[in-house]
């Protein structure tokens, strides 16, 4: 329909009904069946629902669906198609950088955006990029090491 919201989702054309009027997170999870963005707080504080909108990390829980119109959205499901996403997934497996893993899909989104922007980020830059994410299991150090390791792998490639 004419007033549907059209956007790119993980590289493919996608459409949502404008009438819903809700937040992008619920549209992705409940209408489009993409569970990668996780529901954490619904208030944009924890980062579990992070997606890339035109390459920039955004909390899908406080982003109105209408704001996605005309953009390119990448969810954790789509990260594997990018060199940064692949390197990150390999590094996180290699370093076993996860415990409960609830925060991880959002963390990878922010990390991918960082690596796209900064080929060789410093540890401080990594931490600062991840400060939008909360981890309760205490996996912080492994996660930081995994992001740095992915950056090194990409730079050496």
């Amino acid at each position: 329909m004419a007033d549907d919201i059209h956007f790119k989702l993980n590289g493919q054309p996608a459409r949502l009904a404008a009438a819903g009027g809700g937040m992008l997170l619920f549209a992705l999870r409940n209408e489009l069946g993409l569970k990668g963005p996780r529901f954490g707080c619904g208030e944009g504080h924890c980062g579990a629902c992070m997606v890339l909108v035109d390459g920039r990390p955004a909390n899908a829980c406080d982003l109105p669906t209408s704001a996605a119109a005309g953009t390119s959205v990448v969810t954790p499901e789509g990260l594997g198609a990018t060199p940064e996403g692949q390197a990150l997934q390999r590094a996180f497996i290699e370093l076993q950088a996860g415990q409960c893993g609830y925060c991880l899909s959002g963390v990878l989104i922010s990390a991918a955006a960082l690596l796209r922007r900064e080929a060789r980020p410093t540890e401080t830059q990594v931490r600062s990029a991840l400060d939008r994410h909360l981890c309760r299991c205490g996996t912080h150090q492994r996660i930081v090491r995994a992001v740095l390791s992915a950056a090194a792998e990409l730079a050496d490639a």
Partner: protein
Amino acid sequence: MPDVAAGPPPAYLTRHPRVGQWIGIDGDRIIIKPGKVELGQGVVTALAIIAAEELRVRPERVSVLPTATDTSPNEDYTSGSFSISQGGASIRAAAAALRSLLLARAEGVLGAPAADLEIVDGDVAHGGQHVSYWDGIDDEAFGLAISDIPARGAPAAKPPSLGRLDLAAKLTGAPAFIQDLDLPGTLFGRTVRPPAAPRRLERLDDRRARLTPGLVDVVRTGDFLGVVAETEEAAIRAAVALSQDCVWAASPHEPPTQDGAWMERAASPPEVVYERHDAAPRNSVKVISAVYRKPYIAHASIAPSCGLARWDAAGALEVWSHTQGVFPLRRELAGVFGMPESAVVVRHAENAGCYGHNGAEDAALDAAILSRAVGGRPVRVQWSRADEFGNEPYGPAMQVQIEAGVAEDGAINSWRQEVWSNGHTARPGRGQGLSLLGAAELVQSDRLDDALDPPLPYGGSLRNAIPLYEAPDVTVIRRLLTQTPVRVSALRSLGAFANVFAIESMIDELALAAGQDPLAFRLRQLSDDRARQVLEAAAERVGWVTREADGRALGLAFARYKNSGAYCAAVAEVSGDHPLGISSLVLAVDAGRVVSQDGLRNQIEGGAIQAASWTMKEMAPVYDGGRPSGWADYPILSFSEAPSVEVVVIDRPQAPSLGAGECAAGPVGAAIANAFAAAYGVRIRDLPITRERVLAAS
């Protein structure tokens, strides 16, 4: 392999004695059926490793059946760091029994004793002949009792290495959590509760909520209030409208006072729970008396609680929950609905890490109540962030008073410890049937069952309350608090965090008063070699000379979790430049026989960082009457604040495996306090150790 590490059979093997209750073969795969559940701690992977080790197969061949009341053995709760020591022992025994059955069959075919057989990933060979595990064994064999099967050994093997089985799904955005389960026709539920529920619902006007497009129903039963809708947005809108259009009675609980005077009013008379008086008392040349306090701490799981439920036409209930105990939850649900347990199935599904008793089971009951109200259609209830902070049980506040003296020769002479605390567990299936918010609301009660305090040897408030240091005169007293100003229940390590924080702070104070180095002071008064060795290992790794040397300020602490579990020593280093003030934590751990080196390290690292967050940042502000509603009210450690963590593992292949998920908490809390004392000469006895408190004390 003769299993030197097995010890007595775990209790759950007695309850579920047969091979097939724990393990099976499906084609060329081994299926294990643990009763312990994945809470993000990696236990499922560790159990797969144990089965693979016993069966001499690649761990990739092992599948783990999700825990459910209709297919799994009842191993009660996954708690108290018992998953490896008990759950692991069950799987190890079952896998060893299955190996014995498979090898007995191979012996018959190959005509050679088991000890002479070569086993490679399920292929059993002798003299050029082969038998495969995957040819199977008679179904009847799975009905045999594990204890009746003659052991057939195999050459000793090192535990295989296996990465977390659940990690890939969590890195690729695949469905992995209870929130991601979609049953056909699932509706969206939300509950409407004030903070500090259960409270009486005095007035309700649901007309506005009922106008919400997509609403299926507003559900009010007794004081239980919730909504069911076709979409998640509609459920949220209707719930918000309802919450604005209803009036709740005040909480019947008196808020605690900031100065701790409420504890005086609420405390039971002193109860001596442990004493030893080995020698005629000597005179103490130094006596120190101090009070250490720990505030209420939230579990603060990254995802709020979630429950999914449906009823069938015959009145049977099926529930998905991230509970730590599917069987106790089944019992509680059956009680609430007045139905036999056989008509309820509870299936475990993962959520974010819980670290104890959060809102998981409340949300499960919420889903069951809402589903029943809409004719049994599946309903998923998602608590909001405010629901979780507002109504999850907190880890109890505690106060630990210690009076201790050292004799002239510098040895600890006397120790008197009083532990002030609420009970530490109000878990479902344990109390009088009112452990869940919905259960109380259905019968219009504004009170829940009191938290119980598990007795020693493991203890709740008394966990780690008995010091392990040699002292001739020791008295430990409990002052159980009978009022619960705020809902409390189990939080990772229960009372051990406060007790170890207090004991190890006091040890530091005594060492200082006696003019001794804190490491030497501890080593001198610990007779358990394994205790001494973790202390020495941690000290060696940081290059311990004394608490302040070469411009460094270090704090040291030690505990053996539950006085019977893993040994852990921690050293914290203060750095004024670090955002947290603590730049590094070094831990040494002895958890007996190690199942997974990396899994163990991951648990210790995580436990250490979480404890650093509790110690430096966390206090649920119940004192002002309002509970936190979001992360802004309850900050936890950030990526920029996390200190570095290094873990030294002492593997003891000949000793029983000990759970390690909780052993780091107490030592880290005390090591940090001791490091601040070394750096700034201030002794902070009230947690959290905030910058303001350090400045005020300097």
